[in-house]
């Protein structure tokens, strides 16, 4: 005991480890173990005589399966771009506060509290074949046939947009309103108009936060499942990779193959994150210098 006392550094380390232990255990039990176990299962195919990688081989030899990667990308990428742009536009406009700011923020953020299922039901009711929007437009004589906005990729994009926009908006609003307002004032005094201020001063400072927001929204969108089933076309145009994994697990009862698909999905997300982080580092190598010390 006395020896530990005398060495304050080792005592500190011990305390640090003890304090960290709960969260460390949580991460191990809830994330690392299931993840490794999933990989382990994916390497034990249902068929006894098949090789350990046979699930992965099967996935990449079956167009019906490997096309889900492309389908998911084609849903997630445009949605993410739309969400980030819309959030950037609004958050930038609200950076110095506006009238009824709290009310407007509440309305914008409300979808978070509703849950995906409720949101999807709402989208079906409003944008569906017999939804209010189509009935209104038909009654007004603006269209002759109902618009098909649900049970296809448009519906899923709507749903994903509504789910992910609030997160992105709140993140960017916090980030942008944290930028010193006198930077804008000084740019104006040097002759910059609003657009120049955005392009040459504010955007470079927002970019790091924007890229992080992009990465998070993309990963969330890539894992799309409930809305792809409810407002999409799960057997066709919106058969995302998570649906493929679900079908293997709960329709084919092939846990091993399902795990392999889940691992592939995780790797896709990881690959996207790596690309995004590399872009961020390239774009903002100068920006990050000195930002913290402002």
């Amino acid at each position: 005991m006395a020896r530990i006392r005398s060495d304050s550094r080792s005592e500190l380390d011990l305390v640090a480890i003890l304090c960290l232990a709960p969260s460390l255990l949580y991460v191990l039990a809830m994330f690392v173990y299931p993840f490794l176990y999933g990989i382990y299962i994916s390497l034990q195919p249902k068929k006894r005589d098949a090789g350990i990688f046979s699930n992965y081989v099967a996935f990449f030899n079956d167009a019906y399966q490997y096309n889900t990667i492309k389908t998911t990308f084609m849903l997630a990428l445009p949605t993410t771009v739309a969400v980030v742009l819309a959030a950037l536009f609004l958050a930038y406009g609200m950076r110095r506060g506006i009238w009824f700011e709290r009310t407007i923020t509440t309305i914008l953020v409300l979808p978070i509290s509703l849950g995906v299922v409720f949101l999807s039901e709402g989208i079906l009711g409003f944008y569906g074949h017999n939804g209010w929007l189509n009935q209104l437009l038909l009654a007004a004589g603006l269209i002759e046939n109902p618009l098909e906005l649900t049970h296809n990729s448009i519906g899923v994009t709507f749903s994903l947009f509504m789910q992910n926009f609030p997160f992105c908006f709140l993140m960017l609003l916090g980030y942008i309103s944290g930028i010193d307002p006198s930077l804008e004032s000084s740019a104006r005094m040097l002759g910059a108009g609003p657009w120049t201020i955005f392009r040459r001063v504010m955007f470079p400072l927002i970019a790091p936060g924007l890229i992080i927001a992009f990465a998070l929204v993309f990963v969330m969108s890539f894992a799309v499942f409930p809305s792809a089933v409810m407002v999409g076309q799960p057997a066709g145009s919106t058969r995302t990779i998570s649906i493929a994994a679900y079908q293997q697990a709960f329709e084919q009862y092939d846990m091993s193959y399902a795990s392999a698909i889940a691992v592939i999905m995780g790797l896709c997300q990881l690959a996207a994150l790596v690309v995004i982080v590399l872009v961020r580092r390239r774009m903002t190598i100068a920006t990050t210098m000195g930002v913290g010390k402002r």
Partner: protein
Amino acid sequence: MRPSRAYAGRGMADSIDKLQMSITKRYGGKVVLDHFPLEIGGREFVTFLGPSGCGKSTALGIIAGLVPPSDGEIHLNGRRIDDVSPEKRGFGMVFQNYALFPHLTVFGNVAFGLSLQKRPSAEIEQRVRDMLGLVRLAGYEDRYPGQLSGGQQQRVAIARALVLHPRLMLFDEPLSNLDAKLRVEMRAEIKQLHAQLGLTSIYVTHDQAEALSLSDRIVVLREGVLMQVGTPQEIHDRPKNVFVADFMGFRNFLDVTLGKEAGGMIEAGFKGQILQARARDSFRPGEHAVLAIRPEDVRLGKSGDGVNVLRGKVELVEYLGREQEAEIALDGGARLWVRSHEKLVLGEMLDLTLPADKFVLLRRE
């Protein structure tokens, strides 16, 4: 004075001839500036001085165009400019927190305005380098603001504004984030740049020493109302009211009742004693007034003629390095601050002489 090389080819700065204004600013129902009048001539250095919340920064923001006035007009060389947006006024501004662009190098910061004007890159290069030389930052071109000290950052901010040859330079408490020693150094540099480049400058500060050392004229503000305008000497020696006197270091304010006036001197009754002060117009016998005097103007000991002598006990001593300042409890019950090179001992009884010509006679508020 020869124009600096940083201004070569353009002569001295395209300074203004005259800036005139009278502005009012209200936030909600609160009046922060009440018909604030000002007239500034070319090459002048004018300081807005006052405690925080007196409206001095708001006035500067209105001149810059960053804050819209509620009422009133601003005229520059006879032309109305209060409807011109700040980026088109051609004024330079230096902010308290420097407001450098953290993502640009020192060079990029100083070149920012010139590149917006689409100047040829050779000219930009030349002017930025000359200007950085002028503020003694040659060789720092490739550093980022985060890698500079506070004083260096403020010099970049000054260079960034000056490189555009502004018609009017606006300084918004530029030195208040710096430590005391650096503040005095930078103060001298700003004064030198102002003279060397033939600038017209408006400077906002709450520091009276800064205002006195820099200005041609000082404008003292209190809660949006102009209290006094004058040269540093006028403000320092002849404050017009208790507020300005208090701000300029008069620490003793004696409530007196005025008596007879004779030979340029007026009698002032103070706690049963008669003091002599220099008479001023518009004060009448019988009137209640205030006599203000600085602690450093109070003399220890009795004067030869025994006029204006008060007696009291040392109650508190503040050590100031070369001098000491002490609070004296006078026999009549009032208190007086005295500054002296001599050692003052707690509890000691002292005779104090208040020289008649050091008093400033002020109206009671």
